[in-house]
């Protein structure tokens, strides 16, 4: 938890930290931090984590990369949770044809090879100047967020739907119905508050998935542009010359590992704390 708070602080105060270090995220030091062959120089007293292949400070770019990772993780999870919860409520409460249709859609999406499909979408939308869908979808951070959300909402949908199927038979729902409450009111005023615990637990577990997803896409060159520092892209760039510039993969790799681990531990902790049926 402490680590996650630290990440959030770093993300918020990235410009301040960069100014303290004295280097910008896209500031080039190609005269001092690249050798005659254009190869980057490693860690030293001024560049603690060395320079990348363009002569930029790896530490500063990692600091800014925190913003991308957290933004993608939180936004994608927010969208996925919003969609998954809303549709899960509707499907679980109304049942019938609505439930059947929504459940089949969710299953179809879950059956798609997510990374392969995402690569296809991003490649198609990133292969021309205009993007795709007549310019409605353009490559970049938001596309990564939307794709991640699109492929993960069914998980939340299934969890919410399952819980709602149980809750809708409970007495307090019958009571609400008896006093004249409509379906919308019952779903959002009566049932939804009882879903908060599972939503929080699973949302916390979806965040690291989204962070990794962004890293995957950026690693493949399909994520955010180079001028927006991203851990995945930094690792990808470093992989081309890992044997002569080990620091390019090591430091972003460690921070990515720790971030994913931290969110997973947070999710586990929340589940233990909020789920009365879990083993303590």
């Amino acid at each position, binding site marked *: 938890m402490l680590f996650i708070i630290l990440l959030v602080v770093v993300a918020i105060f990235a410009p301040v930290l960069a100014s303290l270090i004295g280097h910008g995220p*896209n*500031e*080039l030091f*190609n*005269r001092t931090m*690249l*050798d*005659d*062959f*254009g*190869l980057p120089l490693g860690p030293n007293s001024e560049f603690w984590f060395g320079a990348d*292949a*363009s002569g*930029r400070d790896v530490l500063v770019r990692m600091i800014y990369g925190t913003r991308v990772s957290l933004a993608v993780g939180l936004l994608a999870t927010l969208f996925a949770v919003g969609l998954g919860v809303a549709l899960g409520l509707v499907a679980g409460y109304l049942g019938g044809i609505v439930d059947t249709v929504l459940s089949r859609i969710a299953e179809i999406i879950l059956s798609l090879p997510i990374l392969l499909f995402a690569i296809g979408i991003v490649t198609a939308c*990133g*292969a*021309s*100047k205009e993007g795709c869908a007549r310019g409605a979808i353009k490559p970049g951070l938001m596309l990564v967020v939307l794709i991640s959300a699109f492929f993960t909402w069914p998980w939340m949908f299934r969890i919410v739907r399952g819980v709602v199927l149980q809750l809708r038979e409970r007495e307090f729902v019958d009571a609400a119905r008896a006093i004249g409450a409509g379906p919308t009111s019952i779903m959002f005023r009566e049932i939804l508050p009882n879903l908060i615990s599972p939503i929080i637990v699973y949302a916390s577990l979806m965040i690291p998935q989204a962070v990794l997803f962004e890293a995957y896409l950026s690693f493949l*060159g399909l994520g955010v*542009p*180079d*001028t927006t520092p991203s851990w995945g892209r930094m690792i990808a*760039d470093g992989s081309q*010359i890992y*044997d*002569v510039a080990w620091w390019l993969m090591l430091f972003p790799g460690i921070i990515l590992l720790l971030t994913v681990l931290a969110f997973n531990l947070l999710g586990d902790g929340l589940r233990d704390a909020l789920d009365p049926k879990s083993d303590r």
Partner: protein
Amino acid sequence: MTSRRKTLALLGSVALVGAVGVAACGSDDKSSDTNGGDTATTAQGGGSGSETRFMSDDAKKGGTYRIATPDLGFTGGFDPSAEYLGWAWGLQQMLLNRGLVGYRHVGGTAGTEPMADLAEELPEGENDNTVWTFKIRKGVKWSPPLNREVTSKDIVYAFERMATPSVGAQYANYVQPIKGFKEMADGKAKTISGIETPDDHTITFTLTEPTPDFLFRLAMPATAPIPPEVGKCHTKAGEYGRYVLGTGPYMIKGADKLNISSCATQKPIAGFNPTDGITFVRNPNYDASLDDPEQRSAMPDSIDISVNTNEKDVFDKIQAGELEEAAGLSVPPDVARKYTTDDSLKDRFRSNPEDSTNYLTMNLTTPPFDDIHVRKAANFIVDKTALQRAWGGKLYGDVTGHTIPPVLLDGDNSIDPYATEGSAGDLAKAQEEMKQSAYDTDKDGMCDAGPCKGVLYLNRNYGAYAKLGPIVIDNFAKIGIQLDAKELPTGPAYETLQTVKNQVPLASNARWGKDYPDATTFAVLFDGRNIIPTGNTNYSLVGITPDQAKKLGVTLPKDGVPSVDADMDKCRKTGGEERIACWKEFDTKVMTEVVPWVPYMNALHTNLLGPAVTQWDFDQDSGESSLAHVAVDPGLQK
């Protein structure tokens, strides 16, 4: 065309027959020359007269010379009529088939002098360089299974294929001056009236205009003979590439098994598979006494080219002696560092001028680059040394300030109207220019009008290209131009840039190399008459007229754009020293009165030689390894 799997590979789209003139290859590179490179590795061993030769004392005939490439990358299926990849040109000229005119296939200026190949000798142009008559060497035979002597009819057939639209000849524009060529290409004639064959060993070309560089054009592989018996069966674009026969020292492995009794019996030659590789073995009908040893040493018994997409694996194998060299790959800078800093290895790293130019292209019709002062400011602000370092440093290119590579200007690299100290860019000079622009509204040296923000900047998304982006974005920001970078794979990047209506303001995804050793192959990039809707290579739209702009959907600046069409026409009619001087004047005018580019580097081609290589040279014509002069010691191979 190009040399290192040129960018070109993708460029495959370039124009072609029929159209006004156009074309040329786009490329990443194409090459030539020798001057220029204070960094170029010079020959070791000597003895050949070539300044780029690598040679040990025990170079012997025999063995298999093994090459790996990530992709054969042929743009025309290896059909000589259509193929436009520099490396493929080299294979065809040096190994497979002999044309009327050839080269020594060595590096430096010696490698750019045309020589008689299939011709007995080089003729002088008659009637103001409009009539050229060649005598063909007697006794030169086609490889098995054809086995007959080459005749003038075979050469005529090669030209007729170029005039056949279905064949997809990509640089037929170079032979359009031949009388009657265009008529046949347009379907108005069945033969080319300007080519006559009084007998089997004589051929005469009659041209419609003085063409002093016609010999160079006849060294291009599409002009080499093709046997009608086989060629007539394959008139779809690229198809003949799987059936190519030749007269050179090698043939494609399995060519002798080709059943040419009818078109129906012909099956692709087994030694060439576009996805796996291509193998050349000795042509039993090749008579070295009828060839010039200066042009072909033909040392190995076979040359094996295999596809390997793992770049690191390729260079590891070269270092281990499991391969002799790579094609279509630049030596990674870390490997170059290792080799050039070790005295026992440095001879095996080679770096030679490709005769290509790397540049940023600015669109003369698109704000803010429709203002010449902005374009000049861009030339002052760009840190060319940083861009050079992004490519790998001085072993990978020489910084330049003009469009045409020095070798095509008699070695002159002095044209540099925007020189800055250390080629690092000069903010003060850039801002002085910017102050004269209408886009600097408060005259503080910064571009501050609306069009200065969010300017589209197109680039490729991998390798050294990707490293150019941060530098360009940083440099332009210093004069107030905020770029919106768009990184695309090679193909889509070219398609986007080559589609005129896109009016891409700024791009660094293209390079250009010579098609043959004359500046006209660069001038085509600024020929307003060559502008076509797609596949366009005049990226800056130099010389576009209001009528063209209207048809192409391009918005022109109110003062139009400058043209250099008349200047290049003047140069094309000259010869000798006058021609060189004319092209220098042309280049200077382009850089001072038009300013379509920020040229920053003449690329050097890098090669890494495995421990079993006992002889090697650079081919200045194709800008690639000279496979005509390599040798290998099988005892050192692993």
